[in-house]
């Protein structure tokens, strides 16, 4: 469970960064740094690498602040997006998973195994309810991918399930989430 950061105007901070005000970037760092480092660390799983990611992500935020468009989503979400994708790009570049495509044979329905699905106390709002409606295997696949930066192969290993099943669970799980969140 994370503490909810106190009220902070993320959009104003990004606009100030776009004007070249370093203090705004620093305020953003002071406000969100530990949450963002937490997000990066879960994905890259190495403390030094996670700090490298945060460093690069803050340069990205600085350089791209002028391109932030409030019409496309909330400023806080955008900031997390920049950090997550910086982290994902960093670990994916070090991995050699080739895209196997969606093997239709393997995508066939299978009995879903009983898995230790991740649990949490954080309030995720509507997403919480929608994730709760998914089977354990689908919920676990999605959370391991998004929060832990797992590849399909890593999720298959964690759930002791065939790769094709994991892909199918993710695909169906996301479709159900989309329907549910609206």
């Amino acid at each position: 469970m994370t503490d909810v950061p106190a009220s902070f105007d993320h959009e104003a901070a990004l606009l100030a960064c776009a004007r070249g005000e370093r203090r705004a970037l620093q305020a953003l760092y002071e406000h969100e740094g530990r949450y963002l480092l937490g997000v990066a660390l879960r994905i890259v799983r190495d403390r030094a690498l996670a700090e490298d990611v945060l460093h690069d992500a803050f340069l990205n935020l600085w350089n791209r602040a002028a391109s932030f468009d409030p019409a496309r989503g909330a400023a806080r979400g955008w900031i997390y997006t920049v950090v997550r994708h910086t982290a994902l790009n960093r670990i994916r570049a070090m991995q050699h998973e080739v895209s196997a495509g969606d093997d239709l044979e393997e995508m066939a329905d299978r009995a879903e195994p009983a898995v230790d699905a991740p649990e949490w106390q954080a309030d995720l709002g509507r997403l919480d309810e929608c994730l709760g409606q998914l089977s354990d295997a689908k919920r676990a696949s999605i959370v391991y991918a998004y929060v832990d930066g797992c590849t399909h192969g890593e999720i298959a290993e964690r759930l002791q399930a065939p790769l094709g099943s994991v892909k199918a669970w993710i695909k169906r799980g996301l479709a159900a989430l989309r329907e549910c969140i609206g």
Partner: protein
Amino acid sequence: MNASHDELQWLAAQYVLGTLPHAERQAVEQRLATDGALRAAVDEWETKLHPLTALAEPVQPSASLWQRIERSLPMPTPVRQRGGWHAWWESVQFWRWSTGAALACSVLLAVLVLRAEPPARAPAYMVVLVAPQDKAPGWVVQTGGSGRLNLIPLGVATVPQEKALQFWTKGANWNGPVSLGIVKPGKTQEVPLDKLPPLQPDQLFEITLEPGTGSPTGRPTGPILYIGRAVKVTS
């Protein structure tokens, strides 16, 4: 919902979820720059899944990480490290100096004005660009309201190899400086202004030292070599 819409949704969802392999992630990121439909689908998934970021426990960064970030920010000279455009804008000392430099150049300006084309309908402006360190005037900017400005060197400048001079301007309330392009040292040159709003009194102009092909970020990244503000010329 048609097949290509489903495919787009699926691609966007996998990108946001993080399960795409490296090459496919890069392909998506390239497409995002130009593909509005993909961008909209990605934005939608980012918003939907964002609450999951709360599942990561906060981790306090090392004490030195902020200094490391700050050192990497693209403002390498002492001038910019004092705070970039805004510090300049707000610096009384700077404006006192540049006003002095402007007055010192008034004779030269008068000559230039007299030599200029007959005044057009739009107001004419002059800018003296001075070096931040010694306040020595380096360039004069002159407009006749004809949608162009003339950039006139006052001396011979040398530019390090693989570097270039880039010319910028920023009006009050603009989000950031706008590039007026690479300029050649020591040469009078004409710069079109047709894509910019009409010049304003006090509009800021500067020349920075950038990589040979210009700033990679679209914003000044190198040291300020010359800086000055537009002054309306009354004839």
